[in-house]
């Protein structure tokens, strides 16, 4: 369950930023999770809610935005959208793909008061 340790990171990042901004409460956290990130978004969301207990984020809303997978296909020299690792290039069917997007796991912004 590494989602829980990632969720603890999310809480810490948000709490630190809220403290620096002299905020008392974090009501919303927006996360970006790429299609190829090593994490299940629903589990991450659930773990964030758990890890938020007794912090400035208690009761906060966690929104996860999925960012699409992208790759450069060396066979047809095109940038392509890739749904999953292990899938072929949607244009030429080749597998010589270099992932160029969709790996991120980021805290985008937080709403504080």
């Amino acid at each position, binding site marked *: *369950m*590494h989602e829980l*340790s*990632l969720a*603890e*990171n*999310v809480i*810490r*990042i*948000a709490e*630190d*930023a*809220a403290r*620096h*901004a002299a*905020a*008392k409460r974090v*009501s919303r956290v927006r*996360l970006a999770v790429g299609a*190829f990130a*090593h*994490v299940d978004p629903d589990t991450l969301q659930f773990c964030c809610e758990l890890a938020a207990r007794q912090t400035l984020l208690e009761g906060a809303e966690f929104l996860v935005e999925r960012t699409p997978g992208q790759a450069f296909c*060396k066979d047809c020299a095109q940038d392509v959208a890739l749904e*999953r*690792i*292990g899938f*072929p290039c949607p244009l030429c069917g080749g*597998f*010589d*793909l*270099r*992932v160029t997007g969709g790996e*991120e*796991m*980021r*805290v*985008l*912004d*937080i*709403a*504080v*008061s």
Partner: protein
Amino acid sequence: MCTTCGCGHGETTINGIAPVRKRHASGPLGAYRRLEQGAAHAAEAAPLGAAHAPEVDPERTIRLEHDILASNDALAEANRRQLAQQGIFALNLVSSPGSGKTTLLVETIQRWARQTPVAVVEGDQQTANDAERIRATGAPAVQINTGKGCHLDAHMVAGALATLRAENALQDNSLLLIENVGNLVCPAAFDLGEAHKVAILSVTEGEDKPLKYPDMFRAADLLILSKIDLLPYLDFDVDAAIRMARQVRPGLEVIRLSTRSGEGFDDWLAWLAAGCAKAQRG
């Protein structure tokens, strides 16, 4: 909980001892401070109205764009820098439980015949069995027990490196082998500061593992197909396994190996020697 990176490894022990939680040395802390400052600056950039009417306490949005693994990655980079300074070639061995990692390490140390010094970091949820198997070869080993944790992270490895160093067991121009917790899922996400991840797939696991667990195979720079002495008793399709691994990791190097027959060891030892030569300081 670690006060620098906040990682919650409450149950982690190194050689059976729970490390004292303290702030990390200047490197990663410095990096983290910068991130914190970044967050503070972002806060200052909040809507102007907020700054002029603090008593209203309006909700405002703070832009962060903060990588969730930034704390681990900063510690991993610090580990990597230290290892590079000593010319140490470090590998992170990842696989499902029981693929033969410890057996491979034991055999490797014996066949390596002290070409360079070797040290080992063992990661398991519980027991010091694997570190004891390594120590029986005469090589120094540190056991990390992750408790409920299912992977090693850069912070645990930093602690293990400090332990090895304190025992004078982390020598210049040496080989460092890190056996991760047996788990085909999350070790892929955590950089430890290694030069390469080496994935081990035993032929008893089925050839479609690379497609079922693509993250791990995609993160690897070498695949060891282990226990190939068992192939006559199985219907494991070696070519299909390699094809599927290269589907998720184009160009992945593969070594077929058996610790029983010794097949594949020449290739593996040559790969290690080449890596060490590259890492060594002139």
